């Protein structure tokens, strides 16, 4: 039958494309990195004192941030689940804000708000010296990670903890607190553990915040060491250093991930598809619900809104240390940064992000479909594995593998992005396929639609939000990205994020603030329309998770 043969041919083609991509993006770079490390004098590097300190700092930061951010995120999810909470819809959006803002901008905006000569210093005379140093790194990384815990806990509450389970506990004699302790939290445990693993790995590989807040205080982590070795050092020894550190980083990640995956994966898979939750009853608003909403609002104000406002103030203030009053306002900073370098970098960033997002939606869709066939399952797993390889490691690997042909080009950065972000595009699409009921497909076929028609009329409209979500998610992440591009860029391939980082290192407060504002505005311009579209789609289907993940 020709149709069957054509389908088989298409499947072979898809497998071929994914196979090639996995080989080029994952297997070759990692193999080259492993080989390079055997050549390097690893033993010597490991014995050098700075390394073990950096490794210890990295683990410490990751452990503390995870321990702080996951419970906070879970608490927020539990609070924001209550329908009687005042301003609930606004707060649900607001608490995700620290994740949308690029890590670099978040860290830098905190210095503009709370450090010496910052906003609070000039207005109230209060400043926080600890911000530059380990405590500041931990606090800002935790603020950045809380939304991850919040989003995963919320998803867990929706799919696993139906209100009936808590009602049953209350009806069995449990107080609200006991029901939370004995039913809701145990049921959420796999989701919270997953959030913990994700936060831990994301913190391990975080670069911008330790660079902005840690490096000035002499507090180094593995990622900032790699950056220092590759960007500032030029001798072969520092390259060997970087290779070894990159491997060390991936080893720490593996030490946590492998056992976690063995324990967690079956539990997360055994997740029941939740029965439809009944309508939540609006309880009466008490002073407690107002207090809870005020606490959440105050938190968002303190950790995101005030720093961002301080950043904007710094960007339009004539000189450092002047009070942010209208007499001192100027657009000179924006004029100064809107030069050839910046516009070139902006173009690079947009080109990279669009190319990466577009290619990744195709790759993600292919791997998501192949995941559902026996022949492609392993391939899909391999494709998504790179997400947990720290960005610094991946950048070093890509540099070793392809540097001699593409050194200093946008292509090199694009390869790194494709490798790193494949999983990010794969997951929303795969999730949408999971939720796609076979019955709808069968009904279309039974109503007379041939497979191509059924794909066009039933699948695409249903999957469109997920595809859009995957595109936005990868686009935004690529715009954020500074860890890999800061290691791989040259003057020909600077991205906006790299320009901001360099400007900060030069100590130009006004221009850095102006650039940060531009970068954030660019992100919001990308995110907000997607958000509106997602809300429009929600009314008709519920792909909230895909798009919520993007924001």
């Amino acid at each position, binding site marked *: 039958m020709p149709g069957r043969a054509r389908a088989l041919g298409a499947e072979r083609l898809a497998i071929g494309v994914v196979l090639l991509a996995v080989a080029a993006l994952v297997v070759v770079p990692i193999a080259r990195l492993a080989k390079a490390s055997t050549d390097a004098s690893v033993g010597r590097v490991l014995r050098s004192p700075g390394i073990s300190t950096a490794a210890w700092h990295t683990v410490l930061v990751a452990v503390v941030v995870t321990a702080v951010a996951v419970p906070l995120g879970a608490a927020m999810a539990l609070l924001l689940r209550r329908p009687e909470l005042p301003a609930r819809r606004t707060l649900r959006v607001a608490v995700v804000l620290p994740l949308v803002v690029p890590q670099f901008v978040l860290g830098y905006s905190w210095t503009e708000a709370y450090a010496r000569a910052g906003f609070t210093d000039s207005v109230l005379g209060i400043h926080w010296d600890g911000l530059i140093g380990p405590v500041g790194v931990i606090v800002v990384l935790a603020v950045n990670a809380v939304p991850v815990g919040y989003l995963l806990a919320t998803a867990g509450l929706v799919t*696993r903890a*139906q209100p*009936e*389970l808590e*009602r*049953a*506990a*209350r*009806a*069995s*004699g*449990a*107080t*609200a607190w*006991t029901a939370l302790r*004995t*039913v809701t939290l*145990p*049921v959420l*445990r796999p989701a919270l553990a997953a959030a913990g693993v994700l936060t831990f790995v994301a913190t391990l590989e975080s670069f911008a915040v330790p660079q902005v807040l840690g490096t000035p205080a002499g507090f180094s982590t593995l990622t900032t060491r790699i950056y220092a070795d590759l960007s500032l050092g030029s001798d072969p020894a520092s390259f060997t250093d970087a290779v070894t550190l990159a491997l060390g980083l991936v080893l720490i990640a593996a030490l946590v991930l492998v056992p976690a995956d063995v324990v967690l994966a079956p539990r997360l898979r*055994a997740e*029941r598809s939740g*029965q439809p939750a*009944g*309508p939540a*009853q*609006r*309880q*009466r608003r008490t002073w407690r619900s107002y207090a809870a909403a005020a606490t959440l609002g105050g938190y968002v104000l303190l950790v995101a809104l005030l720093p961002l406002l301080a950043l904007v103030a710094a960007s339009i203030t004539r000189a450092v240390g002047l009070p942010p009053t209208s007499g001192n306002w100027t657009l000179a900073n924006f004029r100064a940064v809107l030069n050839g370098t910046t516009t070139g970098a902006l173009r690079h960033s947009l080109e990279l992000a669009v190319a990466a997002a577009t290619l990744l939606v195709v790759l993600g869709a292919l791997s998501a479909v192949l995941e559902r066939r026996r022949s492609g399952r392993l391939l899909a797993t391999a494709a998504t594995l790179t997400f947990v390889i720290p960005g610094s490691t991946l950048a070093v690997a890509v540099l070793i593998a392809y540097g001699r042909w593409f050194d200093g080009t946008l292509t090199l950065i694009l390869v790194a992005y494709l490798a790193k972000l494949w999983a990010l595009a794969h997951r929303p699409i795969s999730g949408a396929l999971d939720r796609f009921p076979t019955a709808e497909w069968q009904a279309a076929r039974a109503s007379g639609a041939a497979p191509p028609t059924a794909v066009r009329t039933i699948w695409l409209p249903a999957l469109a939000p997920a595809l859009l979500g995957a595109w936005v998610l990868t686009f935004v992440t690529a715009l954020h990205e500074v860890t890999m591009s800061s290691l791989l860029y040259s003057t020909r391939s600077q991205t906006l994020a790299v320009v901001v980082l360099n400007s900060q290192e030069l100590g130009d407060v006004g221009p850095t603030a102006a650039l940060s504002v531009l970068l954030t505005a660019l992100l919001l311009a990308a995110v907000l329309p997607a958000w509106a579209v997602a809300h429009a789609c929600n009314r008709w289907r519920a792909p909230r998770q895909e798009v919520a993940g993007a924001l």
Partner: protein
Amino acid sequence: MPSEPALRCRGLRVDYGDVPAVCDLDLDVGPGEIVALLGPSGSGKSTLLHAVAGLVAPSAGEIWLAGRRVAAASASEPPERRDIGTVFQNFALWPHLDVLDTVAYPMRRAGRSRPRARADATAILDLLGLGQLAHRRPAELSGGEQQRVGLARALARNAGLYLLDEPTAHLDAHLRAAFLGEVRARQRDSGAAVLYATHDATEALALADRVALLDGGRLLQVGTPSQVYDEPVSAAAAALTGPVSVLSARVGPAGDALLAVEIGDASDTVAGRASGPPHTRQVLLRPEWTSVGGPFQGRVEAAWFRGSHVDYEVRSPAGRILVRETDAPRRAAGETIPWGIRRIWLLPDEAAEPQPSAAVAPG
């Protein structure tokens, strides 16, 4: 000395958003009594049970449990302080606990030590024949087993009142019968009162001491199963308890305790009394109150074979009527058959007008 009712609701009202889900509801459940709450889905059964259990707060009215007021508009006692056991429609078993710990859970909350609670839970499981499932998790149980574990968990509260929220909605017919038998037996043992929500008329009529008919958040009628079935207060109430035909016919006295019913040119007499001169009234006819053969003629529109009997849908000048014959179907659609009536129920004259406030108070 008359003991206090296990449950007393007065003027109860529950709002979801702007929509009242339960409105102006008065209901009593006596000690040791089984009351079935019968109504279509969306009629407010679950909401009423949740309000009684303390899972939602009423917006107006009062709830009394065994003579103690637990909810008023001003304050509502939380569920854990009410002497109530609840069985949920979707089972609501906790995925992280095995059967033994699920049943021990209410006893732990009542302050018993873990070993003691487990020992008591084992006793309940053995009573329900679930002993061999003690160490299984909900995912490893069938639907019937899950619901019996749900019942065991409710019984573990050792309460004065049990609420069952459509417990058989997700069970097959044979499991349903077994479950109902179990509920009956346990209720006889414990002497506790039961409020049992269902949309299945057969189940409600067979199980309950009294049946409360609920529609659109309001009680239509409360009475014994035979009262609500034979003497419904309205056509809507009659339709909730089983198939019924409503016709307009001229009805008047025809001698001592006899009524004449005129349909078209023909008339028949049945037992009954009516005041006043003959006039056109709303007449309710259960299919089994009719028979094939009699003074009336009608065209068969459809025949429904039910195994033990056949219902013919017959067109008459007074409306469509279900006529029952205890036999295999012998007539086909299009044939004209003679039919007669053995018994009727007259709706009160004023019930012809829709008057929701005419709902009958319990008692």
